[in-house]
């Protein structure tokens, strides 16, 4: 599914290297988690993979099902099946949530040469998905993320994910700003989407999200590289001992 090979990335504006040789492979149907201290490059990795401006790839590559991701426009990556659940979902005043979803769904369908979804089918589809995430009709009508609570914004991200049915989902600190109940709801939403054809890359600071979304593999990222990989127990280790021990072990 997702293969990242020796990825080096620097900021476009300043001469600052953020990623210094990331190697990562997420096979189909698997959930991989990336943990790491602040400034380790976790969010940068998600932005670079999804094609945000402001970064320059200086070496390495990334492919999705063999397709070279880094050459594509952001919308082409989306149509190829890459989805990023934002840490800070963006507000778009005046644009109804439903309109936004429908435009996105149809844009991707168009890009893949599929027929656009009819209004009736779309409505049925979105209502069913929204119900699972406890998103009411009112929230579908409101402008995208405007006046949404932290929990509502994250649920809305998962709703978009459910509607767009991506192959590769990146969750960028989806747990940030969520209380326990909201985290449970969001996790259930994600778990419902787990499928043998769909992979997840879950970026998080804390182990607690991984109690709900059980990863197959946990990676520790530090100073722009994956420094250690292991099973779910690695997350527990971080939870108990912090990153210091692992980092010391690597330096040694």
């Amino acid at each position, binding site marked *: 599914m997702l293969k990242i090979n020796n990825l080096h990335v620097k900021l476009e504006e300043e001469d600052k290297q953020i990623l210094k040789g990331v190697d990562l492979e997420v096979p189909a149907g698997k959930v991989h988690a990336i943990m790491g201290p602040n400034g380790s490059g976790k969010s940068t990795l998600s932005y670079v993979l*999804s*094609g945000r401006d402001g970064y320059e790839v200086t070496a390495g590559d990334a492919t999705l099902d063999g397709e070279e991701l880094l050459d594509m426009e952001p919308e082409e990556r*989306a*149509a190829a099946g890459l989805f*990023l659940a934002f840490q800070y979902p*963006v507000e778009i005043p005046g*644009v109804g949530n439903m309109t*936004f979803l429908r435009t996105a769904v149809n*844009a*991707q369908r168009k890009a893949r040469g599929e027929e656009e979804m009819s209004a009736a089918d779309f409505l049925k589809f979105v209502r069913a998905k929204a119900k699972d995430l406890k998103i009411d009709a009112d929230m579908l009508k409101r402008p995208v993320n405007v006046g949404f609570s932290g929990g509502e914004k994250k649920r809305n991200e998962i709703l978009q994910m459910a509607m767009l049915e991506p192959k590769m989902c990146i969750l960028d600190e989806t747990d940030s700003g969520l209380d326990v109940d909201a985290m449970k709801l969001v996790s259930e939403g994600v778990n419902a989407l787990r499928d043998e054809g769909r992979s997840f890359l879950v970026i998080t600071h804390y182990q607690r999200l991984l109690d709900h979304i059980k990863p197959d593999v946990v990676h520790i990222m530090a100073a722009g590289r994956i420094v250690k990989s292991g099973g779910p127990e690695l997350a527990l280790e971080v939870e108990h001992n912090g990153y210091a021990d692992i980092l010391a072990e690597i330096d040694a």
Partner: protein
Amino acid sequence: MAGVDELIAKEGVEEETVEAVKSLAGAYKYGWETEIEMEYAPKGVNPDIVRLISDKNDEPEWMTEWRLEAFARWEKLDEPSWALLNYPEIDFQDQYYYARPKSMEEKPKSLDDVDPKLLETYKKLGIPLKEQMILAGVDGAEDMPAEGRKVAVDAVFDSVSVGTTFQAELKKAGVIFCSISEAIKEHPELVKKYLGSVVPVSDNYYATLNSAVFSDGSFVYIPPNTRCPMELSTYFRINAENTGQFERTLIIADKGSYVSYLEGCTAPQRDTAQLHAAVVEIIIEEDAEVKYSTVQNWYPGDENGKGGIYNFVTKRADCRGDRSKVMWTQVETGSAVTWKYPSCILRGAESQGEFYSIAITNNYQQADTGTKMVHLGRDTKSRIVSKGISAGKAQNTYRGLVSMHPKAKNSRNYTQCDSLLIGDKCGAHTVPYIEVKNNSSRVEHEATTSKVDEEQMFYCRQRGMDEEEAVALIVNGFAKEVLQALPMEFAMEAQQLVAISLEGSVG
């Protein structure tokens, strides 16, 4: 094919349409220039041309005199220069002031004769089939002789709207809806009474010129206590007369009546760098209400600022009666230069004026537009919502006057002006004029300027939209309040226009 080529030249359609036809028909030939020599009155304006126009319209003597007086006055006026607009000096003697409709043999007789690619482009603009036909120049518009209307057009026409069916229905309701030239002949008492009563001949340079040389336009009279049974529209007229450089519209809403009027300048336009100076006058009596919606998409010039329409329009509504109401809604996406301030004279007590505007400028387009709310009567109310969007190297100015006269006690105004910038080479300006001459009135003004946000763009693109889809979505959201004020079918069209007029504004 020649017919279509000429037609496009005449109508000066969206550049994209021209491109589409070019690609289909080979090189775009400018053969129509000769055509113009043959079909248009000689260039320039003078008393002879004024008489010629009057004569072509078969007008009574009083009308000819009215025009000639206007012309004499115009000759003494100077072109105004206070607007934030920059365009080459207009040589008023280097213009055509009258264009006769092309003879019917040259026009496509039915949809089958019209270039399918052309139709497709209109479809992209969201214009229903009827208008597609009209804009494409298919016969069948009202002013054509009955024989010309035969062909398949009739059927399509009937199935979509206006046509003769509605004319009869309107008549039954007592509504008069006809061309102004017809009204001058058929209803001289009404025209004499109201023409120039809202926008006097002396009003301003362009209005004075219009008074001298207007070739046609619409006339509407809604009798007392009548709700016009359907929305009225000027769509058809654009093609039917094939002139429209100087249109004159007169709408009279008698006591307790209601009408919603749509003006669609969608897509069609003559050739490059041409002048369009229209006057719209609306009279609203006691308890009457008029809604006037415009979607203006004249040719904006090319991406280098070459050509396009200079649009100098005077629109004014006079709320004469108590509790009368007017609502202007405009979506201005076209024209190289727009100079337009649809205004409300709130004379009657408790009368109300509203102005909702979206003005989009891209490439080298310039717009100086806004409104005037002149509060004369007590307890009058006005509301202004203006959304200006600038992209490319365009300049967009909101200019508005709110004036509370001494007798306009307890009056209210609320103004909201929002500007959105796309890119860093365009400009947005807000020029509010506020005069309050009594101490019981209240005026509120809010203004914001923002840029299309990178984060919003990336968010939309990550979800699969391309840059243009994303900008269109964000801009439509920005302008939503105004879009909602439009009649349903117009709103749809306007949304698509927003997308089309911003094409090429990003990336």
